[in-house]
């Protein structure tokens, strides 16, 4: 399946989610299991994809310090500021700095 079809399938599925309850909810309400899964799906999926992306960086590069250090700086920055944007604002400069001082 090409990336085009995957994007199309994700788009079609997302659209069905958007209109699903316009048809169903009026009669049957939202299934409880869907409600519970929806509550947890975002943090769980983000944890998996972020970890996978970071692991890919570690295997693709001889320099493990820079990506791990940048991720650590990003976590600290977000926790201290409460702003999700701080992860990029702090993490990317940290990555560049660490890559410069600890080249692979």
């Amino acid at each position, binding site marked *: *399946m090409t*990336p*085009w*079809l*995957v*994007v*199309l399938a*994700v*788009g*079609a*599925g*997302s*659209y069905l*989610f*958007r*209109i*699903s*309850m*316009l048809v169903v*909810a*009026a009669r049957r309400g*939202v299934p409880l299991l869907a409600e*519970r*899964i*929806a*509550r*947890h*799906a*975002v*943090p*769980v*999926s*983000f*944890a*998996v*994809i*972020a*970890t*996978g*992306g*970071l*692991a*890919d*960086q570690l295997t693709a590069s001889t320099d493990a310090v*820079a*990506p791990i250090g940048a*991720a650590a700086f*990003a*976590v600290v920055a*977000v*926790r201290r500021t*409460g*702003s*999700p*944007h701080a*992860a*990029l604002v702090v*993490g*990317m400069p940290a*990555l560049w700095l660490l890559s410069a001082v600890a080249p692979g």
Partner: protein
Amino acid sequence: MTLATTPAIALEAPPDARRAHLMAGARAMAPWLLGVAPFGLVIGISAAQADIPTFAGWLTGPLVFAGSAQVATIQLLDDGASPLVVIAAALAINLRLVLYSATMAPHWHGTSRRWQALAGYLLVDPTLAVGVDGYERAQHPTHGHLRYLGAGVALWVTWLGAIAVGATAGASLPSGLHLEMVIPLFLIGELVPRLGDRTARRAALAAAVLAIATQGVPLHLGALLAILGGLAVALATEPRAQEVPA
């Protein structure tokens, strides 16, 4: 145009009033636009850097129209994950749209199919927030519909424009910038504030450990297993209704 066929919207308001409600919706969306525009740029840059056709990455904008699922789709396609994994992961993230749909259903009850098709397409976190607020403020459902439409169109144009700018600029940026780390860092930024309760922390930790442990699984099915594992931990450890303080 949909407005002309929608019972609640049809010709009840004069053109000037309609325009005023549309603009009110667009203005209510303005603060959100400041936040989502950089997110769109990041997605565009990621699409340009990923090992997929840049236009396919951009196409996630109009087709998926939900940033988190777009990020997941682009990142997992770039990783070489199997189509099933990409689709399952992105739809798991977008499952919340079912709840949004249920939230808006009472407001759109009795409107035409064409209006529901358009309004449903525009439904995502910012339009839900602005839309619900607009319906609560509106003196007539027609006004709420128009505000929702104004907000949704403002978001749609800004979102697709930001992704296009990012995709155009991203292709010409040097590899020394390590832009492949943009998405992992972005996701860290979105993840950390969501780890406020114990259930979320346990589930995210279990999912992250499983993601590492299943790295070698063919077709990147490990990502799907990790998501399912994390969800299982969340469902098993979340407080029951009677344990939640009233």
